[in-house]
């Protein structure tokens, strides 16, 4: 252990699901205190805090959490970046430590969505009198007339564009992704759903946006996750048992979407993920073949399949063969989403990017229980928020 790396010291997440009797502050405060206990520190050790939430982004979430866990006067960054919000919170604390302005900090992500159902896509509002408004001078609502902006539809189109460009990708390959993640979730007590479904049940469940059926879409839900990060110098001053459980952040990368021709009508989830992955591999000095597990952003089954390719887990164009070969199953060569993924573990948006880091950290510590990937030493956590923003973190076990 030497150098100026940043480490994950303590971490925690709630089970994802429905918490109608708690609010987002309750959920977040709980995981913050648990993350402190996990790292054997207190709120008084924190130099900085970043709090991520999407739907309550304007509510001073970080300060509201502090009122439950300790108001020490440290700077709070309230962050939002669509589904990459949690990763952005982690990266904010990471940067503060890297900059030398802090030696320890708290990143927390939280969301309370309830049963909000279908995201994006607007509503059907036929105007009484047509009047042009907005950047496109629309005289009425356009969703369902000029294509779809709903999340299942946008990601379906991302998957079908991949199917157009590459052989061996179709409805069944997308369905297999969901089969795998539902199967994986049966071993994760923190998953919102923990139920296995057959491929036939998945392909036969109600179509949301073909090829995504209901069982190929992540649910909405509530949850929170937190991580305490520490500088290497400060970590070295801590007890050996704490150092042993710390996990190194070998790479922390955030990208936005560069211009592509089709980007104005269909968010490009590929280029920024490719860019983030290649930068992360370079920083960590590893390649995708070195990964023992990957938690990637499977908001829909179609998304996971194309990210095999974007993250370099398979050969270019080979994502269909990759799932067909069984490689991303937990007993395969590159286990992907052994937590159950967003599809079954759940996707309380602000929490997701921290929960992925929790998951990888837990495996690298050898503390993942029934779902443990034996001997895991290196893992990758990926999230993407439409708009777009991509976060990639590569974590390494302490040597």
């Amino acid at each position, binding site marked *: 252990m030497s150098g100026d790396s940043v480490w994950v010291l303590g971490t925690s997440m709630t089970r994802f699901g429905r918490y109608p009797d708690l609010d987002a502050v309750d959920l977040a405060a709980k995981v913050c205190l648990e993350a402190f206990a996990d790292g054997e520190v207190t709120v008084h050790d924190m130099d900085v805090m970043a709090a991520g939430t999407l739907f309550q982004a304007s509510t001073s979430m970080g300060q509201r959490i502090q009122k439950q866990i300790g108001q020490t006067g440290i700077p709070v960054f309230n962050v939002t970046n669509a589904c990459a919000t949690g990763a952005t919170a982690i990266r904010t604390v990471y940067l503060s430590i890297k900059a030398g302005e802090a030696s320890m900090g708290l990143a927390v992500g939280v969301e309370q969505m309830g049963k909000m159902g*279908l995201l994006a*896509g*607007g*509503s*059907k509002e*036929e*105007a*009484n*009198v*047509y009047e*042009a408004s907005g*950047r*496109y*001078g*629309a*005289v*009425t609502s*356009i*969703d*369902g*007339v*000029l*294509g*779809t902006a*709903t999340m*299942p*539809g946008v990601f*379906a*189109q*991302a998957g*079908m*564009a991949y*199917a*157009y460009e590459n052989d061996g990708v179709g*409805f069944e390959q997308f369905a297999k992704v969901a089969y795998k993640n539902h199967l994986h979730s049966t071993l994760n007590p923190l998953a919102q759903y923990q139920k296995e479904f057959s491929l036939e049940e998945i392909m036969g469940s*109600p*179509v*949301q*946006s*073909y*090829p*995504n059926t209901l069982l190929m879409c992540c649910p909405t839900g509530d949850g929170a996750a937190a991580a305490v990060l520490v500088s290497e110098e400060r970590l070295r001053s801590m007890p050996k048992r704490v150092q042993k459980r710390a996990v190194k952040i070998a790479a922390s990368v955030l990208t936005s979407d560069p*211009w592509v*021709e*089709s*980007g*104005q*009508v*269909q968010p490009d989830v590929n280029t920024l993920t490719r860019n983030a992955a290649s930068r992360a591999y370079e920083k960590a000095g590893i390649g995708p073949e070195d990964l023992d597990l990957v938690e990637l952003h499977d908001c829909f089954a179609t998304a996971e399949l194309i990210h095999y390719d974007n993250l370099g887990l398979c050969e270019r164009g080979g994502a269909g063969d990759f799932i067909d070969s069984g490689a991303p199953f937990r007993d395969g060569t590159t286990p992907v989403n052994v937590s159950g993924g967003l599809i079954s573990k759940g996707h309380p948006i602000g929490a997701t990017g921290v929960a992925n880091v929790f998951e990888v950290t837990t495996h690298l510590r050898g503390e993942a229980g029934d779902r443990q990937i034996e001997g895991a030493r290196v893992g990758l956590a990926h999230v993407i928020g439409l708009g777009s923003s991509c976060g990639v973190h590569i974590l390494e076990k302490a040597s």
Partner: protein
Amino acid sequence: MATTQQVPIVNYLRVGARPYLRAQECVGCGARYFDRRNACAKCGQAEFVNARVSNHGVLRSFSIVHRAAPGIPVPYVSALVETDDGTTVRSNLVDCPADPGHVTLGMKVRLATYVSGTDDAGTECVAFGYRPT
């Protein structure tokens, strides 16, 4: 006889005898945009000219949408079309059954306009989609 007023659903649809889509094209690099831009997102130049987008293209991707906001008729086919001059457009496929057996990636399509609604003043809204050829 009074003629019925018509308005396009969006300002980049040009209606008339020969409807087409009009884009703002960057004079520096040729990137096209359907909304107004302060500077080109590709190259940074700030000068644009109107460009007529080809009415012909191929289906690069689609989704058959069965679940949408209340009031939106489903199922429908949302399509990403790459026009012959390389512009990607999103709209619905029209005159095509909304099932995977009738929608083929790479199939040729062309722009089609139709009246999608009428307001209280009797003005018709003209929308566009793409029809298999």
